[in-house]
């Protein structure tokens, strides 16, 4: 197990190098002059050259890349071209917001999703199942921007019971609506996943065995079937947490949450190169970490792997 972990972590190195290389090259093909952004209007040639020199933009690609990466390894992600803010600080400031949003959405997603999924699996081919399938599918098909606007209108403007946007003092009520949108959206996926996993598990021989032992149906479903279905479900859930962490761009934008997602979009749009690099690297690390967590959790909850 530990050996496997170490191996997995070592395997991450080429991936992270690849990620940084891809980001770095992407930046290279982005049109627009970084220097222009930094030095601003009416800058003289000297100022421009000075800036180029400072940023090392006159060096060849690989040198720039290497110096950037050596800085990264030292924990220095550089500063934003646009507002001169340390990227690391920006991440520290914004990631918690995204994380909170993700956490709340995730909670909603898990609670609602698994419950609905199990119910519809157990009641397969009944009216309840059809309703669940129909609505979840409709849920999957509704763009977040559409549901976000709708929910803002209903709760924020019409009923005036919820804040419309922003994080205010950072209390939970500011996260409620966006979490609801994001959470329900992902709950729909969780429900579908749960349903199909449960259906698959319920068909298995060992469920028949359990029933043949005279075990109550509830225990068959919630102990025997769930435990097995949870293996794929929970790994998927962890992954979905990873997706939520990085996938809340639109929600953050619409709800005006100063999270990392909307900030990344800002950086990309403004060609804030060090910011883009930093955010992408950070999110890649997060993502890769979640991948790793998936593997570990898979090993932890699946005895078949645990003992290998």
């Amino acid at each position, binding site marked *: 197990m530990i050996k496997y972990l170490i191996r997995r972590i070592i395997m991450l190195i*080429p*991936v*992270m190098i*690849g*990620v940084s290389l*891809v980001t770095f090259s*992407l930046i290279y*093909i*982005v*049109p627009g002059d970084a220097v222009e952004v930094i030095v601003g209007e009416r800058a003289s040639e000297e100022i421009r050259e000075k800036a180029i020199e400072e940023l090392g933009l006159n060096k060849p690609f690989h040198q720039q890349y290497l110096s950037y990466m050596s800085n990264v390894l030292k924990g220095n992600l550089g500063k934003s071209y646009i507002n001169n803010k340390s990227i690391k600080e920006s991440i520290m400031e914004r990631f918690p917001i995204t994380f909170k949003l993700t956490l709340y959405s995730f909670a909603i997603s898990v609670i609602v999703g698994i419950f609905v999924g199990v119910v519809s699996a157990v009641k397969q081919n009944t009216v309840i199942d059809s309703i669940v*399938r*129909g609505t979840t*599918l*409709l849920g*999957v*098909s*509704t*763009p*977040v*921007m*559409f549901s976000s*606007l709708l929910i803002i*209108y209903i709760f924020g403007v019409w009923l005036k019971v919820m804040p419309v946007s922003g994080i205010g003092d950072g209390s939970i009520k500011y996260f409620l609506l966006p979490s609801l949108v994001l959470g329900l959206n992902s709950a729909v996926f969780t429900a579908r996943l749960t349903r*199909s996993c449960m*259906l*698959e598990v319920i*068909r298995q021989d060992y469920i028949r065995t359990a029933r043949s032992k005279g075990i109550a149906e509830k225990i068959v479903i919630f102990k025997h079937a769930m435990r097995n279905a949870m293996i794929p479900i929970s790994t998927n859930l962890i992954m979905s947490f990873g*997706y939520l962490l*990085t*996938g809340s*761009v*639109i929600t953050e*934008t619409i709800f005006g949450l100063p999270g990392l*997602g909307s900030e*990344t*979009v800002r950086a*990309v*749009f403004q*060609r804030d190169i060090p910011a*883009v690099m930093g955010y*992408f690297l950070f*999110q*890649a690390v997060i*993502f*890769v970490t979640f*991948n790793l967590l998936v593997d570990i959790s898979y090993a932890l909850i699946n005895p078949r792997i645990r003992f290998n």
Partner: protein
Amino acid sequence: MEKTQLMNKSQKKEPEKKNKSNNPWIIAWRRLLRDKTAVFGLYIIIFLIFIAVFAPILSPYHPIEDFNLSEAFQGPSMKHWFGTDWMGRDILSRVLYGSRISLTVGLASRVVTLSIGITLGALAGYFRGKVDMVIMRLAEIMDAFPNFLFAIAISVAIGPGLYTVFFALGFVGWSGMARLIRGQVMLYRESEFVEAARSLGASNSRIIFKEILPNCMAPVIISTTMGISSAIMAEASLSFLGLGAQPPTPTWGSMMNFGRQYIWTAPYMIIFPGLAIVLTVYGFNLFGDGLRDVLDPRMKD
């Protein structure tokens, strides 16, 4: 003697009777047609294709040229069923034309995904070893990027536009497709019919293309159908951020994007394209769900 004759007769009759019907795809198709929800999804898709093809005939107005500033911001009426936008264009016509973009993006981006995914996935799954190692590392690198952000970055990098959307949305999906194909290829690579082909001396390319890939198609079709719907959704999101096809091209996402500033005054500008997206994605999802039931052996009961 009599008995054998009888048997032969009945055997001979059979293939004629179900002449065209024995193709596994057609059988799957027929099973699909028995699934009411899938058929409903199919109707929606056909309806959309119909609209996309005949948009010029169906649209009461031209989506771009027929603007009339004096008729701006009209709510739904007999003249303009879905109302008009800020420059007096007919929203219905724009929504109808928008189906063209959405469907094209859905399909074109899948073509990109499929061509990259199938090639790399098949190579990795079939040859294993170093090839597999390299391709899978590439896929992992791809996966490390949050998809949507990556699509945004690509769009910004090569400049927004319809072709960019095809590419960006197609490209971000390849790793998933490659994994899928790889898994399938690895599964079938060990199967006895591939072994049989190999023992006949079939070349690698023959085995990949004639023996293995046709069998991988079921999950590919399912994931492509589902992929179309998520591509349509992603296109709408990109357009919503101003990165999709550029104005005046009517796309649902950009219509919503522009409608957003009028949401409190002219909500119909955002509702109709929004509903169009919901309907389209719903159609593809319904259909994809049905396909999964029919084609995915695990789901068969």
